């Protein structure tokens, strides 16, 4: 017979309600949100709030690291701790935060320029290192903040004609992630916030580096990859897909590419066995107790 502990259920409901409110509010007043009306990044913000609510996290638990660009501003709108550093450095700061304190929910939030151009070195090696960090790339194919220059993912779905050194074709971040050893690779679309939130929840639960390539349209500078264009081209990962299999992940990408479709959902997810670490001692804890005498013996 199943016994239901009523008191606990009530408490959980209460906690859930208070958290809903926490995440409902932004950290800044509405007029200070400086995204263009209709910007895809609103969808990511909404999706993240849903995911954090669902996971019962509080603002002091989370540590988002924002990149440079429109997308990085999300760190200020989301109600929680945040670090905003230099262009391309997002994942490396996140790595340090995570190594220092495994109790924090570390989320890297950056654009395609930040992650795949100036920060691609960090992207590749973060896939290898596999820290428990969730990366949401708000991918729109352009450098919006600097008025629309091409990013490494520019040209998605377009006939580019003749290529040149100045304007090469786009590359596929999902394939790069798989090649570099990422343990969680997913794709979402800002135009489908509910689905994106589901993907974020899975990513935040993943015990390693979770990469989500989120199509987040730039309504001002990318007039080709619009919401309508994405709606025509996205397609959910089929239910039978086995995300634990690397082979299936590659086949899925190839198969979707042949059909000119963009897979939405979890393409690959296979945790790696990993060593666990305690949080490192922090300021305010007694660091005076270090006894270096045993270390000195090797110099005798």
């Amino acid at each position: 017979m199943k016994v239901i502990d009523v008191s606990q259920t009530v408490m959980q409901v209460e906690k859930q309600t208070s958290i809903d409110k926490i995440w409902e509010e932004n950290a800044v007043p509405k007029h200070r949100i400086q995204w263009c009306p209709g910007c895809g990044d609103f969808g990511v913000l909404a999706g993240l709030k849903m995911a954090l609510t669902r996971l019962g996290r509080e603002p002091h638990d989370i540590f988002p690291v924002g990149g440079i660009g429109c997308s990085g501003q999300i760190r200020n709108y989301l109600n929680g701790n945040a670090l905003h550093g230099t262009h391309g450095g997002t994942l490396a700061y996140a790595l340090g935060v995570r190594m220092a304190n495994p109790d924090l929910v570390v989320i890297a939030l950056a654009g395609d320029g930040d992650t795949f151009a100036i920060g691609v070195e960090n992207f590749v090696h973060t896939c290898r290192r596999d820290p428990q960090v969730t990366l949401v790339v708000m991918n729109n194919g352009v450098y919006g903040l600097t008025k629309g220059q091409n990013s490494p993912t520019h040209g998605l779905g377009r006939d580019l004609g003749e290529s040149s050194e100045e304007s090469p074709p786009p590359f596929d971040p999902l394939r790069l992630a798989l090649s570099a050893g990422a343990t969680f690779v997913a794709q979402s679309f800002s135009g489908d916030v509910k689905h994106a939130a589901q993907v974020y929840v899975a990513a935040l639960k993943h015990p390693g580096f979770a990469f989500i390539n989120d199509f987040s349209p730039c309504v001002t500078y990318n007039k080709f990859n619009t919401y309508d264009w994405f709606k025509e081209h996205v397609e959910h990962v089929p239910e039978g897909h086995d995300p634990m299999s690397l082979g299936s992940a590659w086949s899925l990408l190839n198969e979707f590419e042949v059909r000119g479709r963009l897979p939405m959902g979890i393409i690959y997810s296979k945790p790696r066995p990993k060593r666990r670490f305690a949080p490192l001692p922090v300021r305010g804890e007694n660091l005076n107790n270090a006894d270096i005498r045993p270390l000195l013996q090797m110099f005798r």
Partner: protein
Amino acid sequence: MTVNSLKILIGGVQLRDGVSTVADLLGKVFTRAGLFVLANERNYASTIYGAHQFDPIMVSDSPPLSHGDDRIDILLALEHDSNPDAPEQPNRDTILRHGKSLAPGGILIYDSSTGPVPESEFEAKGIRVFPLPARSVAQRELKKEVVKNTFIVGALFRLLEFDMDHRYFRILLEERFLRKSREMVDLNMEAARRGREAVEDVLAGRGWADSGHRLADVPPSEPVLFLSGTDALCLGAIQAGCRFYAGYPITPASGILEFMDRHLSKFGGRSLQGQNERESIRAALGAGMAGVRSMVGTSGPGLSLKVEEIGLSGAAEIPLVIVNAQRAGPSTGMPTKTEQGDLATTIHAGHGDFPRIVLAPSSLEESYSLIIEAFNLADKYQCPVFFLTDLTLAEVRKTIPESFFSHPVSVKIAPERAFGSNGYRRYAWTDSGISPLIVPGTPGAILKATGTEHDEDGFVTTDPPKRQAAMDKRMRKMETYLREDAREPQVVGDPTGKPVLVGWGSTGPVLLSARERLARDGTDVAVVHFTHLWPFPTQLALPVLKDAAVLIVCEQNYGGQFADILQAHCLLPTRRILKYNGRVFYVSEIVESVGWILEKGAETVRVGEMIPTPTAVHEGD
């Protein structure tokens, strides 16, 4: 007979001839015997194998003030082949390069396995030459080439009449090899015996009663250690509570990474080898943001790559200790040669204005004690704190009493957990400029940090009054620092009315030696040495320097980077003694240069050997 005062230079082909092995062995044995060892001039090449390497070691029964001069008493030439560049002088780069530094009455020991070297030149100077067939005995008779090292050490000990009962030597060998095999210990003892025998043969053959030099042990009254500057720095950092280290392989800072990789986890910390210089400093900033005392180490080229992140540390107010073990620049420069050429870049690196602190130790001991202060300052002022060492300070090995490390350490941590009823404000505009810093994860408090200009809560702003208030607040921290934590330079002698030798960093000890020697020659000078370089403590420096007869700034760079700073802040003229050929200053060079300045009125003296004949360049060649 000279007793207990020696400089031995060990030279040979890098990786092949065992220069490092022999130097480490000697340092350890002499230290255990109660003698003081100072090896301050390690010279190696930026290759793994094949280049000339040498390591001069001072040994005496009292702590040497400095490494002194390039003059040596004993030359241990470990090569066994010819220098292809000098076919007329068979055998030996080391003799060719360092033979001229041998003092009259000195000793030359070389590996004679492939034949003898001409001796007449040395004999004329009263130098005793000991040809010893180390390698051929090791290879042919003992069937293990590597024991040539112990052969040489055995020979040297016999020459110095040191450890005649092989006590120190046997213990060291047993510690090293007994776990592997008893035979290795015996074989090495046998090699050492052959070395002694070979020396006996030379002494008997030449009719010499002894070598003219002797080392006598002075059993130490307390435990003593033989360790490097890098070791001391790492020990200090761990004592100071450093629990996150990130580096990227670069000479001469790699030693820190290796030490931390091996030992930091024993103290609950983590050490990360970054995939590049930027990942290292970014991860360290992340850890610093998460509340961990965090450090990066690098050298010039790495520092250049980290510059953008230094600005972030300054603007976002993330505490970070940055070790810059300088090497000769610019660009790749001379990776394995020492220099003090990064002072200007350390002080100015980064766009815009932000607070930073620059400390520079002058010795192995200060590498330990001052790095603790660096961590305390980083936490207090929440800004980048540079720890400016150099290759000399990284590579120096020295005898230090163990008790030096047992002084109580003051790890000052000011956790700011209390915040007012208005909530937590990361960048609160305080009078001191120092804002409360919490550890993220503190319930009820949100920390928003950014390198973009921001208001008190960490939100972006470009509002002119707010921008000004934020900039003023950050820079105010440096006024607070100058009031509360800046330190006056170390002063030796009375500078009033006298020439003053001014220095910073690793040149400190050599300036003190120069002062002693100048005093012996009748020139009374004072030494003023700076460890706290930036923000420049004008209010503490000016009273010390203003009444000097002449300020002579000695530093190892081309233009006199510290002299420029001193002139700009104190409005006092300086003369300069500069060296940038990759070698340390020698005492005689300083003494001679002071003569040029005081007697001949030189403004700037650039010391070092000149290329003897200029290379003719013909147009059209």
